[in-house]
């Protein structure tokens, strides 16, 4: 169980890293300002959304309050 918590804790960093790699690979194959910008916005938004997943897990693991 501890490992599951750890992965969810790290989800934001994982999402950001994955997005950075996707943006890099896309820019390497096709130089298109709009596509790369769109992927960046999507990646940042997706990593922000993982915050919803992280919050309750963090609080319950550290404080047993949930």
């Amino acid at each position, binding site marked *: 169980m501890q490992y599951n918590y750890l992965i969810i804790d790290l989800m934001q*960093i994982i999402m*950001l890293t994955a997005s950075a790699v996707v943006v890099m690979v896309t*820019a390497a194959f096709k130089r298109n300002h709009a596509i790369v910008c769109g*992927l*960046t916005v999507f990646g940042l938004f997706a990593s922000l959304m993982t915050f919803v997943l992280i919050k309750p897990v963090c*609080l319950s693991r550290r404080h047993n309050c949930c």
Partner: protein
Amino acid sequence: MLAYPYFKTHESPNEEFYILLMTATLGSVVLACSSHFVSMLIGMEMLGVSLYAMIAYTVHDAKASKFPLEAGIKYLILSALASGITLFGIALLYAYIGTLGFDEIPFALEAVGGPGPMFVMGVLMIVAGAAFKLSLVPLHIWTPDVYEGAPVPVTAYLATVSKAAMLAVTLRLILASNALEFNAVLAVLTVMAAASMILGNLLAVLQTNIKRLFAYSSIAHLGYLLVVIIAAASVSNSLSVESTSFYMLTYFVMSLAGFAVISAISDSTIELDTLADFRGLFWRNKSLSAVLITVLLSLAGIPLTAGFIGKFYIFSTGVEGELWFLLTMLIIGSAIGLYYYLRLIYTMLQNADISGEDRAAAAMPVGVHAVMLAMTAAIIYLGVYPTPMIGTLQNLASAF
């Protein structure tokens, strides 16, 4: 969203900018999450190295009107110096207590028989490195030049994400290591806060460039934030974290909206960022001026805006911590701030004297519109009904 329309006119390829943006954001997240000196340093460097390139990004564009290379080199040299000082401080701390985890510092200190001069010197050097990144007086010299020279979207990033990450890790380090128990650290932070609030606001009065004005204003606002961190010496940690988080959130929403307005009338070929460029803005573009007036009123701490609630939070935390000297400086600084924010509003209401193309009256990109609308709505929402956000921050502060 601000970068896309800005770099559309850029002559060289733009795709690398987004890769740098992603790595800088990754560095910021690592920095904000870190509770260990090694991860802190990795985050700082990931963020810093990406920022060097981002600041100087338009250097290959023959039409770039400002001085991105100069700004990039200034930031590179001074930031490298600050990182070196931080690293030396970490080495001193490790030599004295033998651990690099923030949470382990109090226990390690007990084991070695309490703090010695080497420990205090180490903490002071780390604080100095953080103060540079947060542009606190007297380590603020780089801020106006870099803000002015960097492209507007990068300046917005520098003023928000980069500072938020550094502030989060500094707060965690100070609270976890009980650094405020040492008089030397407390005295240095108090002097920095007072000097930042007064000098930042005084120097902002002299500026005729909006980006430089925002730079000095950010120095003053980081000084206000430092008051809450210092208050942690005598109030509960959770209250300090809660106040810092709320003010940080409101300040960064305000900054982003302010830079979005500058971005709306600028691109990589020309940046309209002087006071003269904003003369008569109210008569040329009502929606842009409405956003900027909301931002300026909020930065000045006028009621019904997020800035008022943020300042109220800082003031009440300062009163609880009995920081009378710093609160006096905060009031004086806010009064000076009111003058230059209102002066900018007055400039916008004056008659416009435009010859040639009026960029402010031209149609704005949808992305910039969306950012401005969202940030303005957030400023008013947090000013009128801050309770849900305060509740969320209280939950987060209890887990800090």
